[in-house]
């Protein structure tokens, strides 16, 4: 339309919209004028006034119809109509508050749960990382002969960098736990040593200052740091002049050269709840004993060249790896190199669970839709007379369909709005209580995408369940509806619809509840696993020594003093120090070379978890000694090297033999022999659902760590002892940082946080499904029964027993419910397979779970139909017969 055109028409549209009454009055007056003129004309030709008026009207046709057609030309009608529909719809909803409330709540639950889960998926899985061309970012892994991926070594990293043509560069990363030293205290930071190229490779633009220089990636030249945004804010108050200032880390002063932007995700830390604080150049020390070719403790990150594909790069890296294996046959062994896109590496673990949750919550929405559709149908049926009346009075079908659609949209919008609110609350709660170890969880927010998603579902839902009643209303047989008040005429069809809804409800709920049951059972099984130690009544604290105190002898002496003082505290039963805590997230492993059983290439010998402990540790953790002796005060740095091995290791290397007295080397193939003095029980290290590993314990006098965990077994609540244990340590040395104070129960609990998260959400969705299904079936049946009050009255009056009527109604519900259960069982049988990866020690077709869910749902269906059925049969037949 041309602007010129608008000039004429816009005022008219505005007038039609805003001065509707005036416009309407004009219209009436105009037509009235016409009719009067016409009548006068006929009167002039001799007709009586009455006859003339009638003739004029007859010739005109329907005055109201003509008016309606005039209104249609105004072009703003839809707005008026919408307002009208909405007002009418709201009035209808207000008149049936129970219906409106149930429908809106049902929708809100479905939409809210979906929106919340979608937000999480969007934030965690879908949203791109804040790196340019993030698809080019890869993590590189050595592929072991059993196909598992592991870190790489310095020598390989250097060769990879030199030999490849696929990458813009490869950066290496290792852990760093510096201690920031204040005047009276000290704190351990989460840090990383990174190749100087790391931030450039990621494509990060620093918030302040500059990147590391290649010259700083050299031993002795490396006392520079880049701070994370959060650490900069927290510790330096966001000091804008931070670049160039120094920070005291241990005994060294480091110069701050830069600050990372706020949106730089901590891609390097394993525990999403402990983001990195600080970075320093790798400046690798090639003189260290662990600089060997198979000492795999570096993680490698790379960026593909423009145009290079993953498969090409992987093929090239495999070739390079094979050549290296050929070149260093005794020092290196690998099956190749695995490339994993950075994003998969970050979220790979939680992907399956999140998608499974979305699927499950999608079923919740389906159930919600089924129920609301059903509510709407019942509502529409109740309004059949109203509809018939309106149709008889000349309302057009299209108009009525539009009215129904508006009403269902109104419902879904209200439900959607409430659902959005629920989702917002749910996500906030999730972030607050940190139920799960989800990477990027703090990223999750209800954003435009989520809003669009919610809006989309509301819209689709509204359309889906609004169309059916609308369609039914439009094809209504008027005379019959008016005559019979819609009681028995469409009864058959409605009955089958009711059955279909019961069927769908039961089938969907069964599917969901089975999944929930399996997840719960799996989680319970997981918690029942014996970790090999007793987590109750145990407090753990991490101590990190730094500077001269971290040398072996002073460290051992310091730990002894700590143990003495803590042991003397009232309420402490036993206490010990260990280099890494089981289930604590550390993976400290060393190759073990058993005397006489080493492989041709000793690099292929298996690795064992290594624990350096003080004598009291086994008692503090209640790890059982199966054979031989524990360590004691006689195991010192100068005494013969000794070790304890776990049952799995004993079994693997010395089946049927006594391992005590046997010897092995650890790490270095030419190192000193260690003699086995005892066997202890297996401890689960990586996770409650992980297989048992081979494990070695060494006295901390013979293998000393500067960063250790203090385990304290108490007779009372361990958490209440934290303060006094800390103050004992501070009395000895206030500048030894104490971190990660937690009870062992908490450590175990955190290790299964994601499984708990999955199980709880599945359970929540299952519970919602169960409630919705119960309410749904109850609603359908009570409505159906109410419709049949008349019929029931007749039956009772004719002498049918109440029990017969009762069982008739209940069995009519039970039939579709059973059918739904059967179909649901089949679907569950087919679909729970997808959960296999998430289940621990439970088959996806676990018969007890299937049986329990089946019984539960049949019980619910029985109950939900029994109550309304019973109520109906208690009605006085005379009242029932008169029931309209």
């Amino acid at each position, binding site marked *: 339309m041309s602007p*010129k*055109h608008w*000039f*004429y*028409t816009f005022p*008219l*549209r505005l007038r039609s919209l805003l001065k509707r009454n005036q416009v309407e009055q*004009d219209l009436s*007056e*105009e*037509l009235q*004028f*016409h009719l*009067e*003129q*016409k009548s006068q004309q006929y009167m002039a030709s001799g007709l009586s006034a009455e006859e003339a008026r009638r003739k004029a009207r007859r*010739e*005109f*046709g*329907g*005055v109201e*119809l*003509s008016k309606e*057609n*005039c209104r*249609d*030309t*105004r*072009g703003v009608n839809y707005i008026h109509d919408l307002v009208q529909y909405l007002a009418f719809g709201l009035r209808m909803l207000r008149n049936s508050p129970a219906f409106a409330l149930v429908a809106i709540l049902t929708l809100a639950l479905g939409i809210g749960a979906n929106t919340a889960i979608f937000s999480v998926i969007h934030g965690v899985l879908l949203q791109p990382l804040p790196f340019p061309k993030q698809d080019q970012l890869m993590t590189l892994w050595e592929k072991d002969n059993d196909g598992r991926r592991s870190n790489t070594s310095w020598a390989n990293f250097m060769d990879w960098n030199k030999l490849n043509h696929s990458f813009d560069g490869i950066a290496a990363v290792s852990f760093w736990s510096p201690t920031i030293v204040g005047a009276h205290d000290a704190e351990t930071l989460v840090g990383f040593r990174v190749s100087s190229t790391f931030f450039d490779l990621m494509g990060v633009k620093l918030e302040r200052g500059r990147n590391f220089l290649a010259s700083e990636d050299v031993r002795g030249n490396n006392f520079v740091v880049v701070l994370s945004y959060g650490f900069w804010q927290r510790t330096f108050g966001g000091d804008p002049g931070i670049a160039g200032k120094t920070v005291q880390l241990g005994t060294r002063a480091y110069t701050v050269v830069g600050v990372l932007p706020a949106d730089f995700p901590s891609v390097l830390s394993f525990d999403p709840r402990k983001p990195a604080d600080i970075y320093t150049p790798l400046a690798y020390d090639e003189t260290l004993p662990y600089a060997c070719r198979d000492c795999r403790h570096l993680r490698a990150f790379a960026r593909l060249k423009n145009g290079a594909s993953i498969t090409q790069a992987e093929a090239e890296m495999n070739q390079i790896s094979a050549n290296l294996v050929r070149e260093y046959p005794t020092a290196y062994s690998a099956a190749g190199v695995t490339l994993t896109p950075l994003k998969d590496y970050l979220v790979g673990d939680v992907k399956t669970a999140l998608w499974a949750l979305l699927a499950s919550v999608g079923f919740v929405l389906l159930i919600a839709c089924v129920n609301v559709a059903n509510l709407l149908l019942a509502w529409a049926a109740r309004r059949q007379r109203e509809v018939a009346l309106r149709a008889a009075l000349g309302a057009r079908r299209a108009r009525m369909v539009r009215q129904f659609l508006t009403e269902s949209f109104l419902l879904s919008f209200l439900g959607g709005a409430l659902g959005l609110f629920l989702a917002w609350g749910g996500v906030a709660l999730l972030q607050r209580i940190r139920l799960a170890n989800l990477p990027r969880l703090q990223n999750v927010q209800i954003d435009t995408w989520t809003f669009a998603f919610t809006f989309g579902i509301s819209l689709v839902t509204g359309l889906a369940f609004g169309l059916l009643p609308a369609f039914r209303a439009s094809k209504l047989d008027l005379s019959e509806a008016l005559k019979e008040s819609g009681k028995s005429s469409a009864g058959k069809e409605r009955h089958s619809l009711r059955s279909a809804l019961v069927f769908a409800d039961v089938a969907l709920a069964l599917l969901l509840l089975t999944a929930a049951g399996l997840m719960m059972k799996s989680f319970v099984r997981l918690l029942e696993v014996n970790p090999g130690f007793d987590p109750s009544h145990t407090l753990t604290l991490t101590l990190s020594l730094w500077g001269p105190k971290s040398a072996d002898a002073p460290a051992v002496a310091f730990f002894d003093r700590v143990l003495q003082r803590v042991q003397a505290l009232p309420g402490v039963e036993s206490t010990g120090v260990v280099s890494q805590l089981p289930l604590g997230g550390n993976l400290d492993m060393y190759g073990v070379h058993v005397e006489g059983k080493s492989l041709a290439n000793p690099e292929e010998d298996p690795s064992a978890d290594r624990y350096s402990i003080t004598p009291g540790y086994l008692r503090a953790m209640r790890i059982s000694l199966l054979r031989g002796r524990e360590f004691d005060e006689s195991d010192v740095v100068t005494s013969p090297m000794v070790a304890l091995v776990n049952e799995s290791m004993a079994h693997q290397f010395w089946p049927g033999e006594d391992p005590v007295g046997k010897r092995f080397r650890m790490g270095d193939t030419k190192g000193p022999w260690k003699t086995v003095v005892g066997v202890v029980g297996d401890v689960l290290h990586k996770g409650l659902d992980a297989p048992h590993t081979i494990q070695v314990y060494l006295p901390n006098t013979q293998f000393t760590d500067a960063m250790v965990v203090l385990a304290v077994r108490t007779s009372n609540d361990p958490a209440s002892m934290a303060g006094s244990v800390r103050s004992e340590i501070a009395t000895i040395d206030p500048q030894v940082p104490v971190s990660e104070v937690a009870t062992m129960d908490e450590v175990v609990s955190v290790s299964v946080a994601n499984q708990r998260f999955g199980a709880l959400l599945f359970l929540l969705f299952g519970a919602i499904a169960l409630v919705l299904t119960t309410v749904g079936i109850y609603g359908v049946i009570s409505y159906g029964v109410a419709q049949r009050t008349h019929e029931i009255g007749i039956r009772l009056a004719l002498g049918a027993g109440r029990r017969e009527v009762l069982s008739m109604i209940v069995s009519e519900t039970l039939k579709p419910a059973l059918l739904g259960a059967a179909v649901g069982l089949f679907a569950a049988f087919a679909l729970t397979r997808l959960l296999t990866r998430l289940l621990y020690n439970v088959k996806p077709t676990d018969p007890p779970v299937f049986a329990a869910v089946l019984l539960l749902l049949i019980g619910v269906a029985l109950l939900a139909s029994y109550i309304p059925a019973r109520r109906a049969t208690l009605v006085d037949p005379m009242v029932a017969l008169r029931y309209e």
Partner: protein
Amino acid sequence: MSKPSDLVQGTLDLLLLKILALEPMNGYAISLRLKQVSGDVLQVSDGSLYPALHKLEQEGWITAEWKPTENNRRAKFYSLTRLGRGQLEKESANWSRLSAAISNIVKLKEA
């Protein structure tokens, strides 16, 4: 809705525009004029006349004004706008072309 079935769609618009091009008129007068000029050949029911007029008004081709009639009754008088004059020219031209084409076809001699 009773459409003037013998009228080609859109022709009623042309007729109304043409009638109003001569002088402003109220609806009743237009209905009389239609009958009079077409000699009862074109049957436009009164009921469908008004929606057609309102449509032209909403398009901006004609405009309406309440004025007293000769007998001093208030009536809604329609008159052509500048936009409507352009539309009239366009539609007349269209009509001429269409009718010429149709009469040519009708005049074709059977071989």
